[in-house]
């Protein structure tokens, strides 16, 4: 059973690697945002599978955190879009 967890973990890791390629190459912002989501979900799945395989129950917390912050990272990617003008947008001079 442990072998199954690690094997499944390896499979998800390959898929997450493909999502990583999409995140890095893009080309569009929408591709990157979807890839960031998939990276969060995939990372969570890897944490759960490998955590169960190696008997470290606290990995569930890592998966929880990755799932939560993947949604936040998508918003962060929006904030970094060249269209948004950054910190001093409303500076009164």
């Amino acid at each position, binding site marked *: 059973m442990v072998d199954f967890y690690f094997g499944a973990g*390896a499979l998800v890791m*390959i898929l997450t690697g493909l999502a*990583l390629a999409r995140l890095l190459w893009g080309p569009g912002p929408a591709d990157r945002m979807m890839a960031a989501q998939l990276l969060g979900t995939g990372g969570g799945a890897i944490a759960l599978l490998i955590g169960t395989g190696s008997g470290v129950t606290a990995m569930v917390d890592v998966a929880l*955190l990755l799932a939560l912050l993947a949604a936040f990272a998508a918003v962060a990617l929006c*904030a970094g879009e060249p269209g948004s003008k950054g*910190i001093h*947008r409303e500076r009164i001079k």
Partner: protein
Amino acid sequence: MSMLPDLLLVMLVLGAALWTVAARDRRSSVIGFIALGLLLALVWMRLYAVDVALTEAAVGGGATGLLLLRACARLDSIDAGKPSAGRTLQLLIGFCCAAMGVGIAAAALGGPDLPPTLAPAVAANIDAVGLGNPVTVVLLAYRAIDTLLEKIVLIAALVGVWSLAPDDVWGGPPASLKLAKASEPLTFLAQILPPVGFVIGVYLIWNGADEPGGTFQGGTVLAAMWLLVMLAGLAEPPETRRALLQYLVVFGPAVFLISGFSGFWLAEGFLSYPTGFAKTMIVALEVALALSIAVIVAMMLAGPSARTPR
């Protein structure tokens, strides 16, 4: 069989790291760095350092990513079309970074097979403190002085960020974080996610006593949720001159200092806990510290004052 995922993970980490260094534009580099942080969280997990994995995931995903991406967006509008650093400077930076990498690798690989460790001593005395998580025991009992200084450094860092504000807007609120392209899905997310994130943040703080987790991870999650609300434009960043905000910033470190000095009367000395009350005091300290960390991280990411105080 467990080798296969590890090998794949190492390849992905190396790929993301190479991309971060080699990417042509700043934004791609930063995105590579965020992905690298996520992969490193998985690496720490495989090394059975779950506390570090949680910190890496929370800080990398919740704080650093947003900070760097906003810095990118701001720099793009400032130095569009300007040439980047000269060839000599680039080579010098590359050389220094490579030298540092080699140095760290040499120190990590070249040391004795079994590096000197105090871990058995901690494991033997963990019952005296009454907590289940050895990392929290070390951070808040045996090496509390380091943790105290670390929290005070956080205040200094926030003061550093705030002091970048020009005189005419001193004390005013930071620039609105609201996205230029604010949309209904974002508003929806900012209404749905923070309650869930708040519970997870509190859970991480509370759990830190006995399981992996703790003040920094939980505090950063809380900060990320507050930032999400500000990014969606549902709340504006508070004025930096507000007394409540400033009290919250120093609350955790102040409680830590008072409890440290109370050790002179109640226990054996500075930062020691009275017998039997160690766990109660540490959990109370963690709650106070997490509150301050959440406010400090969120305000640091919001940036210095940029609007005149009302």
